[in-house]
């Protein structure tokens, strides 16, 4: 294992220790008597349902589109055109199934992209081994 990989591992651990579930308590994975129905509802909330949550004003921005963002959108639409999924399956997966942390932490099209990869695996069009090998192969093209 190269030292640059070990450096990445240590950096990763520094970042993930900052990730938190939506409500922070000292002990995670509570015992059943430590969680009431209100907290069950909070933890099982649909991460896309944000209407009415208080927030502060921000600067409204326009944005240039990345090549991968454009291609991701097109891939998702074409997968639906060819019947691999429908738009509601896509929304459910990319806006709710991903969970609160990825929902708020990743870029908008980052969720689309992970979900497009996931549908191919979940519906058994590809195996995770194939996906992993392909990612590794594509990475090597850029080394």
């Amino acid at each position, binding site marked *: 294992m190269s030292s640059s990989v070990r450096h990445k591992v240590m950096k990763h651990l520094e970042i993930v220790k900052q990730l938190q579930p939506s409500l922070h308590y000292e002990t995670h994975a509570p015992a059943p008597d430590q969680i009431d129905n209100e907290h069950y509802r909070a933890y*099982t*909330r*649909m991460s896309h*349902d944000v*209407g*009415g949550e208080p927030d502060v004003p921000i600067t409204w921005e326009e944005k240039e589109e990345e090549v991968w963002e454009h291609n991701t959108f097109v891939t998702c639409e074409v997968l639906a*055109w*060819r*019947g*691999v*999924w*429908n738009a*509601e*399956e896509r*929304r*459910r997966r990319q806006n*709710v199934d991903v969970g609160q942390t990825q929902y708020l932490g990743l870029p908008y099209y980052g969720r689309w992209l992970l979900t497009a990869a996931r549908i191919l695996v979940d*519906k*058994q069009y590809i195996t995770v081994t194939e996906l992993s090998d392909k990612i590794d192969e594509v990475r090597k093209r850029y080394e």
Partner: protein
Amino acid sequence: MSKPHYDREHHVKKATGIGDPQCFKGEAGPPKFKVGDKVRVRDLPDIFYSRTQVYTRGAEATVAELVYESPAPEDEAWDNTENVVWFYSLIFKQKDLWPDYPDAFANDTLETELPERWLEPL
């Protein structure tokens, strides 16, 4: 165990040249509500998926339009399209949604669309 079979053609066969939600027209049966009816949004369990926003639950609204027939999003999100229901456009008074909404803007409203199953008569 064999791999599950997905009929990737079922939607394209149904909707080509017609469109969606037009392809579900006539499948929902008689609508339960009509334009002008007062309804309340039910507080149903939203386990795994829904497009009925939490902020509408338990609130009163007026039916503004019967917009189309379609499977409910809770079903369509797993590609279940057999159970087609009416969708209603509803108008809420903002004061009924947000207790802190300013009295000065008591006329302000919000419109959104919900499937029939989420509504009960008032």
